[in-house]
């Protein structure tokens, strides 16, 4: 029952008078408040700040610290108040939960401190109201990420018993792990720089010998440059081979971007070694040397920023592709227009449409070299339109990339939110469980309730109290209300499994497929179906009495097993049931039962396998008085 509306329970019970003239059966006795106290104020002293509230307010949530008898541990006899040595600010939120039924998360509190307080007072955080739940989850996530980051830093601690190969790999990946790794890191960096510099300087014209024209340094000091190149390539090759050896997954390593760059960086040299003597392909060989510039990308192992840039470009690829596409469209349009506009003019440079591409690109990017200019008036008009639109079109990439940065950032958030949504589903499932738990609580307590009726016969008050202590007065009144409704309509509440069974039986043993409702019963603990509570109220005029299949409440596991057989069968006469009080005995005899005589035998009904959970079979009683329990526990 939603304890938020506990205050309206008297009204609901009063309204039940509306059912009375319609009912044909006597109503159950109302639960009495055994020690009815006038509602009193209780004082909660939290670290010196005194909070006062009605006792009833706290009793609304009996499974928390303040609502149960657990708070008696904190009762201070001298000052007649409950003292808690906790944070009073967070306690405000906790107490407001009792008052309003909604739990809020105060934004100024640290998430860990808040969680601790909640667990101290026995409140699950899932019931935080929707207004504050997002914030709570965000803070929680942030905190966990922070902890994860800290953990990652700690991860670099050297694990014992690492093989040489693993050590090497770790050294390559993270140069700070050992001195050797650091040395290696710097050496390779140095050689990359040298290699790139060599490539550049190679082409600079060095001083001339008096009789020849200027030659680039590369041709003048061929040997020197060749030695330098060889040295660099040697270093790179050795590095690549070492990485290949140390990689935990060689195949994956060979596919990675960095290794491809490595290969491309050193390959031209080897190809050049092979092909030096052939003049025909030396042209191709020269082109290959261009690839040496890829060595500069090897720096990305050394620079985090480069890696992020690369990643961004990769993820912006689709946007940039679209941009390129639209640019191409614009270029083609304007080039065509310019070509036809300039066709008439003499000695025009716009010889063909592809030739006009150059003009369009230069104009749209506002470069304006001036090597091609329109001469006709139409050409000039369209040329100016072209340059204006160019400004607009070129201005597009910047926000695209900016928005991509933020998109990448938000994607991270969204991934986390998706994770949070899964938790949202889990949260909703939990709330649903507790709600169905409430409705099952009625069914559950009916059994216990009737049990206590019987106890009044045989009674010892301790046992009574023992059973009723678990139920607050509110709950018992609510259950009494539901009981009255049952009597009015002459039907009983059943849980879903019972409903399925009786539905199936009504359908004359048809074999329906496994109903999805079973999966929806995930949340239900296996409470005992009360259709076995056949305390007969009156002959059912037309209905047959089908066998009712019950689920035994096991130790709160879900009864989804396809058992068909009944195993041990216990027949319990009531008189000896005292000893078996600890077992979950089913309904005992009615209060006006004469004696505990054993009734009839058991029927096991062949149920279709798809729908049989754990099975308790129970024969409907044949008479009014003989109501004894036949309980089957299926293992």
């Amino acid at each position: 029952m939603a304890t938020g509306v506990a205050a309206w329970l008297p009204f609901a019970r009063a309204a039940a008078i509306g059912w009375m003239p319609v009912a044909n059966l006597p109503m159950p006795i109302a639960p009495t408040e055994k020690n009815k106290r006038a509602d009193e104020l209780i004082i909660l002293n939290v670290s010196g700040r005194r909070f006062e509230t009605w006792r009833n307010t706290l009793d609304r949530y009996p499974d928390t610290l303040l609502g149960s008898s657990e708070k008696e541990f904190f009762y201070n006899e001298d000052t007649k108040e409950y003292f808690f040595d906790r944070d009073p600010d967070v306690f405000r939120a906790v107490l407001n939960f009792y008052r309003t039924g909604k739990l809020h998360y105060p934004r100024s509190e640290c998430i860990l401190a808040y969680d601790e307080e909640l667990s101290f007072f026995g409140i699950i955080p899932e019931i935080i109201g929707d207004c504050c739940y997002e914030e709570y989850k965000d803070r929680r996530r942030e905190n966990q990420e922070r902890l994860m980051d800290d953990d990652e830093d700690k991860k670099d601690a050297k694990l014992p018993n690492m093989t040489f190969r693993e050590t090497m790999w770790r050294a390559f990946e993270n140069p700070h792990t050992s001195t050797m790794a650091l040395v290696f890191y710097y050496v390779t960096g140095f050689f990359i720089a040298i290699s790139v510099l060599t490539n550049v300087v190679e082409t600079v014209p060095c001083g001339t010998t008096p009789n020849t024209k200027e030659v680039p340094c590369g041709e003048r000091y061929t040997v020197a440059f060749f030695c330098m190149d060889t040295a660099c390539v040697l270093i790179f090759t050795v590095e690549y081979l070492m990485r290949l050896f140390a990689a935990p997954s060689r195949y994956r390593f060979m596919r990675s971007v960095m290794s491809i760059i490595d290969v491309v960086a050193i390959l031209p040299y080897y190809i050049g070694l092979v092909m030096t003597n052939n003049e025909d392909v030396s042209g191709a060989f020269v082109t290959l040397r261009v690839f040496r510039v890829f060595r500069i990308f090897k720096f990305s192992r050394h620079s985090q920023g480069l890696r992020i840039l690369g990643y961004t470009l990769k993820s912006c690829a689709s946007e940039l592709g679209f941009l390129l596409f639209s640019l191409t469209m614009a270029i083609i349009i304007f080039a065509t227009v310019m070509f036809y506009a300039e066709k008439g003019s003499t000695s025009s440079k716009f010889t063909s449409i592809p030739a006009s591409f150059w003009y369009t690109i230069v104009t749209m990017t506002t470069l304006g070299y001036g090597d091609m200019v329109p001469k006709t008036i139409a050409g000039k008009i369209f040329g100016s339109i072209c340059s204006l639109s160019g400004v607009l079109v070129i201005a597009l990439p910047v926000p695209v990339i900016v928005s991509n940065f933020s998109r990448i950032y938000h994607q991270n958030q969204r991934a986390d939110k998706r994770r949070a949504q899964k938790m949202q589903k889990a949260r909703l499932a939990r709330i649903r469980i507790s709600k169905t738990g409430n409705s099952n609580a009625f069914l559950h307590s009916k059994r216990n309730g009737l049990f206590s009726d019987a106890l009044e016969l045989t009674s010892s008050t301790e046992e009574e109290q023992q059973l009723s202590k678990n139920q607050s007065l509110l709950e018992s009144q609510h259950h009494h209300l539901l009981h009255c409704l049952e009597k009015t309509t002459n039907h009983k509440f059943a849980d879903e499994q019972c409903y399925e069974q009786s539905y199936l039986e009504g359908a004359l043993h048809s074999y329906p497929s496994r109903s999805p409702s079973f999966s929806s019963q995930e949340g239900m603990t296996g409470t005992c179906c009360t259709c076995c509570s056949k305390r007969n109220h009156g002959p059912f005029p037309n209905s047959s009495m089908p066998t009712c299949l019950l689920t035994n409440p096991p130790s709160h596991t879900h009864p989804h097993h396809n058992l068909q057989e009944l195993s041990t069968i216990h027949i319990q006469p009531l008189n000896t049931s005292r000893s078996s009080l600890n077992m979950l005995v089913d309904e005992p005899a009615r209060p006006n039962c004469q004696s505990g005589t054993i009734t009839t035998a058991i029927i096991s009904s062949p149920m279709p396998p798809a729908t049989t959970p754990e099975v308790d079979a129970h024969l409907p009683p044949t008479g009014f008085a003989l109501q004894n329990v036949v309980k089957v526990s299926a293992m």
Partner: protein
Amino acid sequence: MDSQAKRVETISARLDAAGSSTDSVEDELELSAVRHRPEGLEQLEALTRFNRKELQILYRGFKNECPSGVVNEDTFKDIYSQFFPQGDASKYAHFLFNAFDTNKDGSVSFEDFVMGLSILLRGSVQEKLNWAFNLYDINKDGYITKEEMLDIMKAIYDMMGKCTYPLVKDDTPRQHVELFFQKMDKNKDGVVTIDEFIDCCQNDENIMRSMQLFENVI
């Protein structure tokens, strides 16, 4: 009495700002802006059979759930449904609402609430039966017809939900209504009048006993 007592504060600024809104929107605004303060404790004590302390407790609970001081039908249905998680209590709540809303203004104020409760919990058997008759007589014409009873019965059975044992068949409410009319309709004219109703109930031991059931609710 209610209309005299009721002091409705409409936030006229809000309505003015709404400008030329349609009627339904205005009504919504008005309802949401309506606040209600009940009569003083003394008057209520005179009107009902509750003492001061009980009225205090009732009002605190009432106001907690409805801070604005009035309950409209949706809130009412919502609250009532929470007590019957397995079934659909909205239809019965609708009838209950009409029974409590004596001046038919679409909302149950604290006075209505507490006067209804006073009859139900502290009234004489005659008054209670009267109240029940009023509940069943949907159109308040003084007769309970089979159709009205069938509506009420269906509403009650709806509260059970579908997971019942035995299953509620389609004609179960109708059968129950037949049973009811057999018992109550003495002159077999197809309707039950208030006198037949009260007579019959007073002769039925079960009903008499169950009427006393909720004496000690507050």
